[in-house]
């Protein structure tokens, strides 16, 4: 790194920026980062708490990137992302657990599933099928939530999505009262447990002892969502989203179909939330109504904003940072230090410290850790432009 600061530094920076401009930069960066990330499990024990934290973080990256499509690309502030997490998680709860034990005369129903799960009562579908169902269901839910917001803009969209999120939360908590044909909708606060472990073709069954396959599965989902994010951003649809974000009226008059574009943003963003939700349902081995709190929506939104709205790499970084602060830094790193040196239990203050870090990060770097280039230009040039305008007027 220090060599770059030498005489060749400027040239290297110039080359670097031209590479940055090239469309293969992201591809190369993705290849390097994903390879590095895939090798991490070999450095830590396979059942360690840190690998557990990492797996959760990677699952949150999927959610963050999903929400980034809605909030970052299309500029539709969504405060109800927990709805998609919940629907995705319940998909696996319904279709891959002994929850609906009465199915098929209590014999169970298994599709492409082997091992012990197939012999249990209840519905047991293969994880790939679950993913597909989760994507379809959440995309539909996304469209449904999007419909009433079509006439609205700005914070009003946030309010409607918040309301939908809260409705889903309440339905999840009280879903055990909703019985359709003898089948309960959810299991409320007791939760649906156990949930089938992921069972992929050609791979050994996942266990809760070896976390590596879980981590790699989450990473594969990230790879998929990264690919979709990049391809969409550079597509006609992605440009339509960004146009919509910048100026809705101008976008509409340029022929961007508002309804279709907005609904597609909601549906795509929701689908990733559903995928990650289904994964987490199996990984955490429970689908519990208490997992779906308003806090969760804010948590994911904070990842997107902290990383840099619309910036794909920023959101990846933001998700990993916030998730690890929550699951690793506060409980596993800072707390032992505090306990040893100050004889003080930090866990009581954990969400206060978390809040403090949020405020601090926002005040120090409001544009996000890695702001999107387009935004950065707007921010700096926009201010400059205004200043000249004021000066000429004066």
């Amino acid at each position: 790194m220090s060599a770059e600061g030498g005489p060749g530094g400027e040239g290297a920076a110039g080359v670097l920026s031209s590479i940055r401009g090239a469309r293969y930069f992201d591809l190369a960066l993705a290849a390097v980062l994903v390879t590095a990330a895939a090798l991490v499990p070999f450095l830590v024990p396979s059942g360690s708490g840190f690998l557990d934290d990492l797996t959760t973080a990677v699952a949150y990256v999927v959610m963050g990137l999903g929400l980034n499509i809605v909030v970052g690309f299309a500029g539709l502030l969504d405060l109800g992302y927990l709805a998609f997490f919940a629907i995705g998680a319940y998909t696996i709860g319904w279709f891959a657990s002994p929850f609906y034990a009465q199915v098929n005369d209590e014999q169970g129903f298994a599709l492409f599933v082997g091992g012990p799960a197939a012999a249990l009562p209840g519905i047991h579908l293969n994880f790939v099928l679950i993913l597909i169902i989760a994507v379809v269901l959440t995309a539909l839910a996304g469209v449904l939530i999007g419909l009433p917001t079509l006439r609205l803009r700005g914070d009003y969209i946030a309010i409607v999505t918040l309301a939908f999120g809260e409705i889903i939360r309440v339905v999840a908590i009280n879903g055990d009262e909703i019985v359709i044909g003898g089948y309960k909708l959810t299991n409320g606060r007791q939760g649906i447990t156990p949930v089938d472990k992921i069972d992929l073709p050609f791979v050994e069954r996942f266990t809760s002892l070896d976390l590596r396959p879980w981590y790699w599965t989450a990473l594969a989902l990230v790879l998929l969502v990264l690919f979709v994010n990049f391809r969409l951003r550079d597509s006609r649809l992605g440009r339509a989203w960004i146009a919509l974000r910048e100026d809705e009226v101008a976008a509409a008059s340029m022929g961007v179909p508002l309804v279709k574009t907005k609904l597609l943003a909601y549906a795509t963003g929701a689908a990733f939330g559903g995928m990650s939700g289904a994964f987490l349902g199996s990984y955490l081995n429970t689908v519990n109504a208490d997992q779906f709190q308003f806090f969760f929506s804010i948590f994911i939104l904070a990842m997107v904003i902290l990383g840099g709205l619309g910036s794909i790499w920023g959101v990846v970084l933001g998700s990993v940072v916030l998730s690890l602060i929550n699951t690793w830094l506060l409980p596993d790193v800072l707390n032992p230090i505090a306990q040893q040196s100050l004889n003080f239990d930090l866990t009581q203050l954990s969400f206060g410290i978390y809040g403090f870090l949020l405020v601090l990060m926002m005040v120090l770097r409001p544009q996000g850790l890695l702001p999107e280039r387009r935004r950065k230009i707007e921010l700096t040039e926009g201010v400059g432009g205004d200043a000249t305008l004021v000066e000429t007027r004066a």
Partner: protein
Amino acid sequence: MEAASLPAKPGRPRAVTAARNFLSKYGLIIALLLLPVYYGAQDLATDGNLSRLGNNLVEGLSNGAIWALVALGYTLVYGIIELINFAHGEVFMIGSFTSFTLWSTLGLSLTSSVLGLAGGLLVALVAAMVVSGLLNTMIERVAYRPLRGAPKLAPLVAAVGFSFILQNVGLQWLGASPRAVPDLIRSQRELVNVAGVSISNGDVLAIVATVPLVLLLTAFVSRTRLGKAMRATAQDPEAARLMGINVDTTITVTFLLGGMLAGAAGLIFALYQTTVFFFQGFTAGLIAFTAAVMGGIGNLQGAVLGGLIIGCIQQISDNRIGGAWTPAVVFAYLVLIMVFRPQGLLGEQTREAG
């Protein structure tokens, strides 16, 4: 004009257009009346009178008065800097906690003398308002002011961060479980009974404390110089600055006022519900925010109206549908309002909602 600029939409029958117009005009009112009218009819059919519905509405209005005070803080702040102040519910919670702590330190209880009780309540009211007001101002100074030129969502995350900090403060202050507040005013005792509708001490307190505060606030905003400055800043901060208005001071005053109202609401809540909880601010915040939006965000009368309506919806739903479903009912109403009348009940057509 219309025909010249826009080609007539083909193939839409006149009946559909008429139905649409009707719905957009009266849909919200119909939706709002749905619950009371349905359960009123049910009452009439079973008991022959409306006392049960009346009781629901009385309790709803007094509950709603508390939400109205909190909602005013949301609407003031949103009106002036277009920020959803997520920490506002926690400021309300701190108001409750301040009053509770004061009463415990003073050793107030039901057996205290009337004069002592009145004095204690008054001191607590002042303390809660001052603490909450200053707290809200401090939050603005520390977290929102540095972010004023930043992207619009940055202060939102800072607000969430502060809300976590304050929740943690509340957790450390009074512990993780709800605390019982001494029932200083015998909140549940029936004061008068009008045709089967019972009005309790708590109901009277909520209304009697709320009305003057709302009137004072309205007078402040509409009559005083600072109030005028607030309205000007809300309309156009840049132009207000050019007219010599100190925008920073105005925003500080707005936060101070909102915080003071939240503090007062916190005290009334503690007296009325006789229990305080570190998580109470979160729920209250969501409900009050809904109320502010329902009335038309940025509109003071709207916030009060929205608070009262939400209080009634909540009470009817608690009593008839089941408390567990109440949040879903309230938020379903919120979605309906956004669909039928995005600008809120009393709100003006704005660019955002238009």
